[in-house]
């Protein structure tokens, strides 16, 4: 065993092991989230069935198509176990993940998971030719990051307990409520891992 001498004392015993982060992997840009999590020092687990939900420190709902994911949550028997897991697990949703976490979004075949007290409008900026990349302000850290918006949703309503974590041209594009974080853009499409690191450290508390 290598000596731990000289290192700062550990805050929690589980810091010894890298955090285990589940990524809902029914459809979407799972691989890009895996890359971002690995760069933060986390281990990721692909979640496609209920049995993959055990032993996780946090969960990521990736970008992709929300109707596809909702359909597959039902057919794979994952919806109820996922809803249960989300009562305690910290979660980060990007784009389609934001829609899944919302209370309500337009034109979905079935209701989203309702973890966050927000409503969302799908494809809020229009079709793909209106997709864009621009500076986004992370209000939690005062930093600016690149926001890649791909057929991105817009947040149309925010409940009282919902904190703003990111804005673009004054519009709210990222929110947090307790352990749940949702952003309309895709940090996983850039090499910048600050958003993932912030989530693991400050929200999930599983990264020191």
């Amino acid at each position: 065993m290598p000596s731990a001498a000289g290192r700062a004392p550990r805050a929690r015993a589980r810091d010894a092991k890298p955090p285990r982060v589940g990524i809902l992997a029914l459809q979407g840009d799972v691989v890009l989230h895996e890359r971002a999590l690995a760069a933060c020092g986390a281990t990721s687990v692909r979640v496609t069935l209920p049995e993959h939900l055990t032993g996780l420190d946090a969960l990521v709902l990736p970008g992709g198509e929300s109707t596809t994911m909702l359909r597959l949550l039902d057919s794979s028997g994952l919806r109820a176990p996922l809803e249960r897991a989300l009562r305690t697990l910290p979660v980060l949703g990007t784009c389609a993940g934001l829609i899944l976490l919302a209370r309500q979004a337009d034109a979905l075949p079935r209701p989203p998971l309702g973890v966050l007290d927000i409503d969302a409008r799908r494809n809020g900026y229009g079709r793909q030719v209106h997709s864009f990349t621009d500076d986004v302000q992370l209000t939690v850290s005062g930093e600016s990051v690149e926001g890649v918006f791909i057929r991105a949703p817009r947040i149309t309503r925010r409940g009282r307990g919902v904190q703003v974590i990111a804005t673009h041209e004054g519009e709210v594009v990222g929110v947090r409520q307790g352990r749940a974080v949702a952003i309309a853009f895709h940090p996983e499409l850039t090499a910048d891992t600050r958003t993932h690191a912030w989530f693991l450290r400050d929200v999930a508390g599983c990264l020191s």
Partner: protein
Amino acid sequence: MKRTSSRDGARKSGSNGDGKRVRDLSGEDQFRLKVGLAEMLKGGVIMDVMNVEQAEIAQEAGAAAVMALERIPSRIRATGGVARMSDPSMIVAIQRAVDVPVMAKCRIGHIVEAQILEALEIDFIDESEVLTPADEANHVWKHDFKAPFVCGCRDLGEALRRIGEGAAMIRTKGEAGTGNVVEAVRHMRTVVAHMRKLTTLTADELMAEAKHLGAPFELVRQVARTGALPVPNFAAGGVATPADAALMMKLGAEAVFVGSGIFEVGDAARPKEARKEQSRMARAIVQAVAHWDRPDLLKDISTGLPQAMRGISLESIPEGELLAKRGW
């Protein structure tokens, strides 16, 4: 549907109405946005649909995107003649009916059909060998467009030539409209094997290999370094069953196009029954792509399905009618 029309109204004010959404982006940023959408489609099924009703069935079944075209490949094959871009009115009707991305096909090298599709705000343009080529020498210079393009390939050289021209997604050509997966398998194995070979070559061997492939040298170098295409690599052409779709994922595809394999299912004389069967097949293929590496689940997904499209053997198609030979 009432819901559709009200939503459409809301969307207009959100995207076009505020006048801020037209941004001047660098070519590099533009390309990242195009590849970004392709990334979002990974693990999904893109379904060919010929009308609004089929588009709704596809979306409800969990399609990650739909491809709007007047005749699915099997019918193009059957009716013959020149196959062209679909009428914009059918494309627009499908765009209004669904919220998933809508793709449409232009003929190889038909710059103006591509421009029309872009003006329709189509989410992905398929410069497709399924339609009759408009140019036998040149493909569309896809970097000029804001709309992303997907192109077919039979081998790595063809894939890298299309990426060089600006394709943001590559798919195998397979042999569309046959319900026979053999060509898609051949093309995917050829691409993947060649990428693996590139990773074993030394720097001084790469230029000769680029010459041999007929592919842009910088892209050859990139593949040699990463072992993967610089854009998502999907499968298409002849996928007819959930097992076919899972097979393509196992061979390295990152998502699957299903053309004739869904809406050729069922007896057209009994439309209500046929729709149910098409919907079941569509749902099963979506599940198979999500769980492609779980034979225990694929067993259940494949059980009791409606009969897949009849299909045709490759040997029975005259050489001149092979769609995969179009483009280079």
